[in-house]
């Protein structure tokens, strides 16, 4: 049975609403849920209980998960510290390293399109006397490795550069950064949240010292994350930011979220097995979406480098159409916009602005995040829907009309309000 939603036919097999915002979070894989369920009920033990079978069972499950996660990134299980999620992992990594290595130096290097969990953590450290360099990015979203080289000085203790960006999916030259950091004897932390399970990650080949991870972006549960902390060559030490029972090698106290951790491990195991096929499939779907949109619409811009990019990410600006009005027209499709109107701060996306995009183009951006459960039929429906709404809104857009008449919008004196 097909039906009509706002003028576009809904194909068989597509049910609305469609979720295409997998950078924000992803649905739980049913196989992950199945693995987790016993640990809510029968196997409820505290992994820190050393004197009975309930505790042993829970501990065993946690250790299995640690192995599964470590395997996905080429680490050893002992290097995985469990946290509540990536925001905590970023805080623990940056604050914990800053505190531990304070005598060695007070300089931290990061870059402008990092997640707020990194940027705001660095801002706080500035208040405590640390010096932070925020590297710019090029128009394609990548940092210039030469900028990083120049920024490192004898007081630099930490470089924190994300693996893949959450808005534009752009993958930073992590291996090059890691190599440089190791040559200079600087610790390299990367926020690996968007990369984990989507593209190959190898902490040794890439010289990553510390990496923030989370379960819910790779079809695992929310509320569980991890920090990879290198144990040798070099051994990285981190000051705990939460004090208590000394869990997780003293780096992160607190009773472990056993079902969550089991789910995280299972999600990593699945990702490791399915990544090559899944990445190829998602990239094909992403390119299909892009090609459809570009073939039907003019004044469409891709934001960020297309070559070094997560397979499921597409970030496009539909110039002369405002992002929130576009989202309103595709309200049976869950995507995100860089428009100010969709943000709590009423500012357009700082990531897109860092690429040098004008506010007007940032306002017109949509982020499509394709994931494991999206289908080709969904992509086709979303493409048709977006094409229809963009055309309709451009009929309404004075800017589109003026540009079509040959008027140069930059020559108009706009009354900013």
């Amino acid at each position: 049975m097909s039906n009509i939603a706002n003028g576009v036919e809904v194909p068989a097999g597509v049910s609305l609403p469609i979720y295409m915002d997998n950078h924000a979070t992803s649905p739980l894989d049913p196989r992950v849920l199945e693995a987790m369920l016993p640990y809510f009920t029968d196997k409820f033990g505290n992994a820190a209980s050393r004197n009975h079978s309930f505790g042993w069972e829970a501990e065993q499950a946690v250790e299995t998960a640690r192995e599964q996660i470590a395997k996905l990134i080429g680490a050893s299980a002992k290097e995985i510290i469990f946290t509540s999620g990536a925001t905590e992992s970023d805080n623990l990594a940056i604050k914990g390293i800053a505190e531990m290595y304070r005598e060695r130096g007070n300089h931290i290097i990061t870059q402008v399109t990092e997640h707020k969990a990194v940027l705001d953590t660095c801002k706080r450290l500035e208040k405590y006397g640390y010096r932070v360099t925020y590297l710019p990015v090029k128009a394609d979203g990548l940092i210039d490795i030469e900028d990083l080289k120049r920024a490192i000085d004898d007081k630099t203790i930490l470089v924190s550069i994300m693996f893949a960006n959450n808005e534009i999916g752009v993958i930073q030259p992590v291996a090059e950064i890691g190599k440089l950091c190791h040559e200079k004897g600087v610790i390299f932390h990367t926020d690996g949240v968007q990369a984990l399970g989507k593209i190959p990650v190898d902490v040794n080949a890439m010289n990553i010292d510390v990496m923030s991870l989370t379960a819910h972006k790779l079809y695992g549960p929310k509320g569980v994350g991890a920090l990879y902390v290198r144990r040798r060559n070099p051994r990285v030490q981190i000051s705990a930011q939460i004090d208590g029972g000394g869990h997780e090698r003293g780096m992160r106290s607190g009773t472990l979220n056993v079902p969550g951790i089991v789910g995280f491990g299972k999600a990593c195991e699945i990702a490791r097995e399915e990544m090559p096929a899944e990445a190829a499939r998602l990239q094909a779907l992403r390119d299909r979406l892009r090609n459809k949109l570009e073939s039907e619409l003019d004044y469409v811009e891709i934001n960020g480098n297309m070559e070094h990019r997560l397979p499921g990410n597409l970030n496009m600006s539909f110039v002369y159409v405002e992002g929130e009005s576009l989202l309103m027209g595709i309200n049976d499709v869950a995507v995100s916009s860089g428009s100010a109107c969709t943000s709590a701060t009423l500012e357009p996306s700082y990531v897109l602005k860092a690429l040098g995009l004008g506010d007007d183009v940032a306002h017109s951006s949509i982020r499509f995040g394709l994931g494991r459960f999206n289908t080709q039929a969904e992509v086709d429906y979303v493409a048709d829907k977006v094409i229809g709404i963009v055309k309709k809104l451009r009929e309404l857009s004075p800017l589109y009309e003026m540009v079509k008449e040959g008027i140069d919008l930059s020559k108009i004196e706009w009354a900013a309000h």
Partner: protein
Amino acid sequence: MAYSDKVIDHYNNPRNVGQMDKTSDEVGTGLVGAPECGDVMRLQIRVNPETQVIEEAKFKTFGCGSAIASSSLATEWVKGKTVSEALEIKNTDIVKELALPPVKIHCSVLAEDAIRAAIGDWKKKNGVGEIEALAVAAH
């Protein structure tokens, strides 16, 4: 964000979309807002020179759903009003009619500005402001 039914209705079925000849003396054009701010409204009115009644109104808007609805509603409201009646439309009336949340009040302000700008343009073309000023001075 949840939109009111009226905002959704104007978004889905915008009234009086289009443009009129802005060189015509009977037409006043208001272009307000800025692309960098995420909203630009163009509101046009065609005024009967005899009666000063706004007989036709057209708009185009780049902006969020609330901006589109505010300008669509503005065209509906100015139609049939005299120029001086239209100047009495306040942004708060638009807020109330469309049930706009606080973060969207600026959309209604922009719509009021667009009405004033269109009327201002028409007055300038027709020297109406000066006549009114003279009339005031004569009192």
